[in-house]
């Protein structure tokens, strides 16, 4: 696993898990690996893995049941909320990039449509 | 301790097997010579094989002692020593196992070679039929050298005991000298020479002490020397263990 070593590892791993939850790869209510297993799977320190779950729990996207483990929330609205937020972040990052190139928001939308068309053409 | 002993045996068994193998070959040659006694070949084989057997007997006991010192040296000065010194065992146990293994090996090989020698001599003169004559000759030889020990089981036992015990003491002196060399003089100038001088000095000291012991004649004297050597070995063991525990870095 390659991480950006200048950003806390727990931030990066929790983003990966959050992404999987939003995409539905990890379905609502499903059980997540234990802290040590998560650490081994992602090649990270067990304390870092514990921190990942702490963070996801704080956000309410995961819940830990005593003696049972950590689970993805069953609250679909919560997942939707996180998904919206992550998508919003991605959109803002994209816009910032486009603006940085001296283009306007309209250009950004047009670029998106072209890119989508190009993708279709590839198929 | 038994576990340590087990691995000390494993570290040294190959040498013993080689000594045993050579002894076997020489013994076979001797027996072959006995069978061919009337031919000229037999007459050549017998003296050569007897000489070889005598040399192996002395050499074998010496080699076993020397190898024990070399094994200790390797354990203290090469990476394989980590294997030994990372175990939860004290220096008293580590040195103890080594000395015990060596003491037992020296005693067993001494008894083995003596028994073999006794058997061969008996065989030879049973074949030649002049056994009584031989013992008389040996007695005369010993008298010539003013050895006042009777050729009885007790007398022979005392000679073997004294010589094996003093050899064991010499080996334990080498242990102490080597431990001092590895623990205290390591990396210093003249380490090798100082260690050798120390070894010689301790040997002289031991002989001086043994001579100072009240001793009688004949068997009594031999027993005193043997027991004195064993006591000296124990002192060397304690000193070695203390130094190793406190100062040895591997």
């Amino acid at each position: 696993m390659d991480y950006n070593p200048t950003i806390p590892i727990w931030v990066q791993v929790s983003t990966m898990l959050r992404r999987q939850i939003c995409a539905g790869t990890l379905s609502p209510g499903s059980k997540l690996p234990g802290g040590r297993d998560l650490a081994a799977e992602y090649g990270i320190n067990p304390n870092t893995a514990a921190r990942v779950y702490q963070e996801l729990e704080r956000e309410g996207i995961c819940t830990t049941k005593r003696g049972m483990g950590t689970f993805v929330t069953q609250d679909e609205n919560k997942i939707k909320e996180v998904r919206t937020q992550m998508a919003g972040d991605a959109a803002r990052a994209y816009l910032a990039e486009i603006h940085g190139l001296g283009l306007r928001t309209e250009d950004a939308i047009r670029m998106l449509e072209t890119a989508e068309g190009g993708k279709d053409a590839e198929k | 301790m038994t576990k340590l002993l087990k691995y000390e045996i494993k570290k040294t068994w190959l040498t013993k097997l080689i000594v045993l193998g050579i002894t076997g070959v020489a013994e076979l040659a001797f027996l072959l010579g006995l069978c061919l006694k009337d031919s000229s070949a037999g007459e050549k084989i017998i003296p050569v094989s007897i000489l070889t057997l005598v040399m192996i007997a002395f050499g074998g006991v010496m080699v076993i002692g020397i190898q024990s010192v070399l094994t200790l040296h390797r354990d203290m000065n090469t990476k394989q020593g980590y294997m030994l010194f990372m175990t939860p065992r004290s220096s008293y146990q580590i040195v103890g196992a080594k000395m015990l293994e060596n003491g037992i090996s020296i005693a067993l090989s001494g008894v083995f070679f003596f028994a073999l020698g006794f058997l061969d001599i008996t065989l030879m003169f049973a074949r030649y039929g002049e056994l009584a004559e031989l013992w008389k000759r040996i007695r005369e030889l010993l008298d010539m050298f003013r050895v006042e020990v009777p050729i009885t089981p007790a007398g022979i036992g005392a000679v073997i005991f004294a010589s094996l015990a003093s050899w064991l003491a010499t080996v334990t002196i080498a242990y102490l000298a080597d431990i001092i060399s590895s623990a205290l003089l390591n990396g210093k100038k003249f380490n090798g020479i100082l260690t050798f001088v120390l070894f010689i000095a301790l040997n002289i000291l031991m002989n001086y002490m043994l001579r100072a012991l009240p001793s009688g004649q004949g068997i009594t004297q031999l027993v005193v020397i043997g027991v004195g050597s064993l006591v000296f070995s124990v002192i060397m063991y304690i000193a070695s263990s203390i130094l190793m525990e406190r100062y040895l870095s591997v």
Partner: protein
Amino acid sequence: MLKSEELTKKFGGKTAVDHVSMELEKGHIYAMLGPNGSGKTTWMKMAAGLMKPTSGTVSFEGMPVGLESRKHVAYMSTEPYFYSWMTIRDVGQYYEDFFDDFSMEKYRQLLREMELEEEMKTKTLSSGMAAKLKIAVTLARDASVYMLDEPFNGIDLLARDEIRRCIISEAAEDKLLLLSSHLVEEMEAVADRAVFIKYGKLVEVRDLEEMRLTDGVSMADRYREIYGHTEVKQA
């Protein structure tokens, strides 16, 4: 859990470890970093009880290291150290004979994961295999402290993930892992704290996630900050 106070080791006129005082706590994986010859190995050997300090002390749970601590501290040296007559099975038997916390079952499982056969002779192992064997036999102990000196040395890129996974699986709240390495990148995600040693002196002990969060620097960045200009000077 493992504490050194003013720990010093001199070899002749050269000081390998120079008045190092630090306390390593359980529940963490420490990366011990520094260029070759900075004193990492010497510190570990003193903590393992193999080397006697010139001055200062090193203790395990309040007791000076020695007979008792060796029961609870699993040390893996960077050099191969098995007796030349041993097979991989003999190595396991040796640990079984001397360490109460050794599990033959766990040893066999680790051997399988590392694709080592018990019949192989240690003398004929490739350097990569020998490195894996050292790790397998050390991790098969259920020790309180694991000190692994250069665990990734000699291990090819593909096998490193496997080794890392095995090491991480050993970490627990009541255990302490100390890994030395000059392959800093390999340790970045595994360790949560780093001990930086330079010319035998302790520079600092840092919490890595905190360092990334507050300073935005990685362990490797910090490593370059500490040692970078000295390497230039040497060249």
